[in-house]
């Protein structure tokens, strides 16, 4: 199901690919597909609506940056807007602290408590755990077993039903330890007694952090529950668990938005080591079911700064060897062509096999050949005669045939750009360009 969604998202992006101006209808379609992708990842409906509004407005209003096509432009906005939501990294210091765990029943608090204990232990901190779950049978047993495996002291009393007393005693019993993690009973927002209990526990422990544990599969309910927990004890970090399933964790996004905090950890497995610090990029890629968006966003940005290819002049037909040189240089800065193509979420763009390698090595040769040309030759390739070709080839350590091939390539590019200007109303079509490339070999 998710595959078809990200495919339709890719298709929508592909439609934007060929455009030189931002097209309202295409943006609308993209936004619609994006909405569907986010909704099926369990992101809060209202949040999705706000997001898509921001993306639509920015895509249509912001000026298209130089040397960027519409798809990259819109994609970057999508990425930036999503990052804005999850970017607040929750603060995590290696110093003495008390951490209070909160969450719904079955979200994975106890397992996560042990995992966090292990995390701090590996960082060289002295860790202790208090089991304040007096309700679920076997809860103390579970935590004690997990803690015993990693030699972390676990304080608790399976016979007692008074969580407040256990925590008070526990804080005294393991006060010499640096990091104290308090595991609590699962509760939800509509249980006033239990909400009061966690407010009291928060007061007793004077907790440094109050982390909310969220199941990656939690749906629209995430927003509401997170808000209530936040109202009660002031959540300052979110942990997403069970990311090893197929759930996308969109509910956690709602929780983060609701608590204005960041995502601290991601749990993705049943072993005690299966805990990772949050990585915004990986999370968003998974949310949308698409490749590495951040890398793309950054590369496009870099390349923009580096090159000043005059697209306007090119479109008007003033395409010289100098322009082509800059263009090749820009492509080179973005890395091998194949890598760039893979990063672009354009799905099943049909490119003949082997095109990438041949063209990228050729591009290097072309640049060396052009380095051996005079400024006049670069500005007006028409003056290159066979004797000039001889000289250029000698200077670049190549053959006159190579120079001829370069000129043929230049003419083709020139023609392509001119043709595009005429036929498609100024649309720069990468795909057609690539086809011409392959015809060259």
């Amino acid at each position, binding site marked *: 199901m998710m595959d078809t969604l990200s495919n339709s998202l890719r298709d929508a992006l592909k439609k934007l690919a060929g455009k030189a101006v931002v097209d309202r209808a295409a943006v609308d379609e993209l936004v619609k597909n994006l909405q*569907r992708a986010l909704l099926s990842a369990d992101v809060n409906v209202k949040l999705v609506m706000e997001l898509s509004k921001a993306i639509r407005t920015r895509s249509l209003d912001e000026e298209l940056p130089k040397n960027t096509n519409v798809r990259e432009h819109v994609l970057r906005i999508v990425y930036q807007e999503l990052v804005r939501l999850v970017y607040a990294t929750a603060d995590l210091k290696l110093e003495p602290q008390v951490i209070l765990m909160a969450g719904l029943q079955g979200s994975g608090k106890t397992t996560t408590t042990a995992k966090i204990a292990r995390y701090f232990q590996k960082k060289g901190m002295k860790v202790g755990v208090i089991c304040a779950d007096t309700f679920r049978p076997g809860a103390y047993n579970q935590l004690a077993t997990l803690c015993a495996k990693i030699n972390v002291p676990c304080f608790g009393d399976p016979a007692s039903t008074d969580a407040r007393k256990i925590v008070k005693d526990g804080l005294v019993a393991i006060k010499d330890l640096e990091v104290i993690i308090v595991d609590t009973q699962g509760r939800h927002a509509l249980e006033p007694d239990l909400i009061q209990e966690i407010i009291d526990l928060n007061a007793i422990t004077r907790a440094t952090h109050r982390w909310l544990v969220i199941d990656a599969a939690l749906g629209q309910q995430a927003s509401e529950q997170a808000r209530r927990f936040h109202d009660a004890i002031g959540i300052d970090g979110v942990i997403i668990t*069970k990311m090893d399933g197929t759930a996308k964790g969109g509910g956690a996004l709602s929780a983060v938005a609701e608590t204005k905090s960041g995502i601290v950890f991601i749990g993705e497995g049943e072993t005690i080591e299966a805990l990772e610090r949050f990585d915004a990029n990986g999370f968003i890629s998974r949310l949308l079911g698409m490749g590495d968006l951040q890398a793309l966003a950054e590369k496009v940005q870099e390349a923009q700064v580096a090159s000043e290819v005059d697209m306007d002049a090119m479109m008007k037909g003033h395409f010289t060897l100098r322009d082509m040189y800059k263009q090749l240089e820009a492509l080179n800065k973005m890395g091998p062509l194949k890598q760039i193509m893979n990063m672009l979420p354009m799905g099943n763009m049909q490119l003949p096999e082997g095109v990438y390698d041949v063209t990228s090595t050729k591009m290097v040769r072309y640049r060396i050949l052009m380095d051996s040309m005079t400024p006049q030759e670069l500005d007006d390739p028409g003056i290159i005669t066979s004797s000039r070709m001889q000289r250029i080839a000698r200077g670049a350590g190549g053959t006159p045939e190579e120079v001829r091939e370069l000129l043929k390539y230049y003419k083709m590019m020139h023609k392509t750009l001119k043709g595009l200007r005429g036929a498609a109303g100024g649309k720069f079509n990468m795909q057609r360009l690539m086809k011409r490339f392959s015809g060259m070999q």
Partner: protein
Amino acid sequence: MFSGLRDRLQAARDRLGASIGVVAARPQKPEPDKTGEIASAETPAAKNPTLTDKVRILIIDRELIVSEKDVAAALDELEMTLLESDVALPVTDALIADIRAGLVGKHRKIGESVDALVVGALKSALLKILGSGFDLTAYIKTHERPVKILFTGVNGTGKTTTVAKIGAYLKNQGFSVVIGAGDTYRAGAIEQIGVHAERLGIKVIEHKSGADPSAVLFDAVQYAQAHKTDVVLADTAGRFHTKANLMSQLDKIRRVMKPDLIVYVDEAVAGNDAVVRAAEFDRTVGADAIVLTKADMDSRGGAAISIAHTIGKPLLFLGTGQAYEDIVPFEPGTIVEELLGGGTV
């Protein structure tokens, strides 16, 4: 549970009713250009209906046709409502299509209530998805004892608690019950089910932590056969459908204990993933019925609709709290009636 969805459905129903009502109001004004579209909707062949035709349609037949355009806006709103209620996206699409089919092209006599038409469409779409329910008591009575019930599901959905609750429920119904502590993986799981069973006075068959769950559950079945116990409730460790080794372990359990019923347990607060994993569990080990837990967390019950639609299996129980009696047999008819409360059809 479901109260949130009910309010939302009520709003959607009013909205749908209103937009159809507008259509009803329109042709009564004697403006030929406005009535044109309605007439052509009914008789697409006649592009230029004569005035007599129009008069016949408007006055003599006094019948209206609901067009797609009339309900589009209201259905868009309903779509958002369903999504907000955690009905998964593909299921929402299917539901909306059903409702649209139930409304568009419907002839409506002037006197007939708009609301009735809308409620009818909603009701049939929901009932189609929720099916007819599942009566566990009747099932046990009509089958050879012991009836073996295997519980499956992902981690943390509440399988162990559900096993205890169903144990208590069946015991109250007068059946004898034995529980197999098949979760030998999670730390504290055997203790957890042990404490529950002790409180309820139910026999538990358990091995040591880390033992082969198939062996535990086989022993539970053996025990039931030897002691003429009515029902075997087999708890298992939570597992993700993405873990092939754990799923094949579950398959082995199924081969060894040969359950009569496989009950898939998921939580009512789960979002879109509910659909993915339910389908995967159904595909690999099968599922005969569903239990939805945590229905008391103010959920709108969307997961019930999503899962039922995806695997087409009946809902057995809803878990509605932490106490043993917090379990409610699921009756689709009652639920739908409650959702569309006061329906006139």
